[in-house]
């Protein structure tokens, strides 16, 4: 495939749509309504492409799982992949069965008792369990980091302790705890947050502009 089709044409399309999107921010609405109409149309196109990609992604996932089973022919893999396919088939059957009734909309199945039973009794429970594991990992990470080994970790630990103590009602009776906690939250944390957000936004803006003028390495590196 020529570089015109693989590289230049996509960049040209990106630039045209990108510039029109930027223009809509400034000149859309009542000034040039066509720009807002164009933005709405593009939004619809993005949704169509994204949902098509969801279908492609599902096929991709099934294919990956199939090849995983072919590579690892042991009982653990059969159980893992088998349970995934079983859940997929059951959910699909429930959805089609519920949807197929007379006068029912596509989303009807999501409200049905059968679908909700699977959601609440199978999916939600394992999600809650995973969240619990996540917080366990979080505690492990906090324990490791809040060890005083250098000047930075000392400051980090003290600031963290000030904020933790401030958040525990018992310690609010100790003079100064609330004030120090509030200061940590309001001065260094807020300042650092604003600085990080500001500089990150500038970085994002510059990369966006660079991509629009076709100088972003990630989008042009096609040999």
């Amino acid at each position, binding site marked *: 495939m020529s570089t015109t089709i693989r590289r230049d044409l996509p960049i040209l399309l990106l630039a045209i749509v990108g510039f029109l999107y930027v223009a809509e921010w400034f000149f859309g609405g009542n000034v040039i309504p066509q720009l807002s109409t164009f933005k709405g149309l593009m939004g619809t196109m993005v949704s169509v492409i994204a949902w098509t990609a969801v279908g492609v992604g599902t096929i991709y996932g099934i294919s990956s799982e199939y090849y995983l089973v072919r590579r690892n022919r042991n009982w653990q893999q059969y159980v893992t992949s088998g349970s995934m396919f079983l859940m997929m088939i059951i959910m699909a059957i429930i959805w089609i069965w519920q949807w197929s009734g007379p006068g029912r909309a596509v989303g009807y199945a999501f409200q049905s008792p059968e679908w909700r039973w699977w959601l609440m009794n199978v999916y939600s429970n394992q999600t809650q369990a995973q969240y619990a594991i996540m917080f366990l990992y979080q505690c492990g990470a906090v324990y490791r*980091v809040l060890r005083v080994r250098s000047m930075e970790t000392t400051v*980090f630990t003290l600031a963290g302790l000030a904020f933790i103590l401030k958040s525990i009602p018992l310690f609010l009776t100790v003079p100064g705890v609330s004030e120090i906690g509030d200061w940590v939250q309001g001065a260094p944390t807020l300042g650092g947050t604003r600085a990080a957000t500001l500089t990150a936004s500038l970085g994002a803006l510059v990369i966006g502009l660079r991509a629009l003028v076709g100088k972003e390495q990630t989008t042009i590196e096609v040999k």
Partner: protein
Amino acid sequence: MLNTALVEQFLRTGRVMDILFLIFVWLFVIYYITKAGRGAQLPKIRRIAAIDAIREGVGRAVEIRKPVHWSFGNAGAYVTDQNVSETLAGLGVMSYTVGLCARLGARFIFHMPGNPEAIPILEGTVLEAYSKEGKLEEFDRRRDLRYYGSGMMVFTAALAQSFMTEGVAMKIMMGRQPTCMYVALEAAKLQGAIVIGGTARWTAMYSFVLTCDYLFIGEEVFAAGAYVTGNPYMISSLASEEMAKYACIGILALGIVLSLANINFAALMKN
């Protein structure tokens, strides 16, 4: 003061300062890109410790014969909204990491995010990096490109399982991250991996500080792509970002002075 009625004939309400700032940044982007095109000397980028750590981690992966794992998080690598810039920056670093793995002979495993519209660009970046090193045949895409769908918990469980069964020498996670990063990064840490992270999303930065050995903080995510490629156009636009930063600092200082003089600076900036 601005004649609001006149301005609103040509511009949407409250966008005057936005367009002035955008033009300011754009002029500097064009200036520095033109300068790079002429081959003029460009500003130097300081060393980023996390980049050096990537090189070290790939070397370690070769020595201990364990893979390098990369992910953007289960909902990372956005390609359809304002977070595209972060995805592009992450791809630059990923391309560099894959290239190193291919060159040195380390196995690269990519846990792809749940948003399937990103798959072509992600897969393309990995294959292209292997191709550039002339080792495309060494990458088994059916084995090492993983897709788990959109469930966060499925994603984290799959990563943890992969670390335990296949091993992990280095785990890198870049881009806007949801809460899944704790499990993914901490599980890698518990398996003795070098853990590197990077995000420009400030609510996720704190979590990265807790779990990572090396970190791209905020704008470093955007600078990293330019640093690893050494591409003069990318470096040049970073200089324009610096100019915008100085402008922001100037506006902040001006705002403080004017506010002290009882002038409503915030109202002027809302125009």
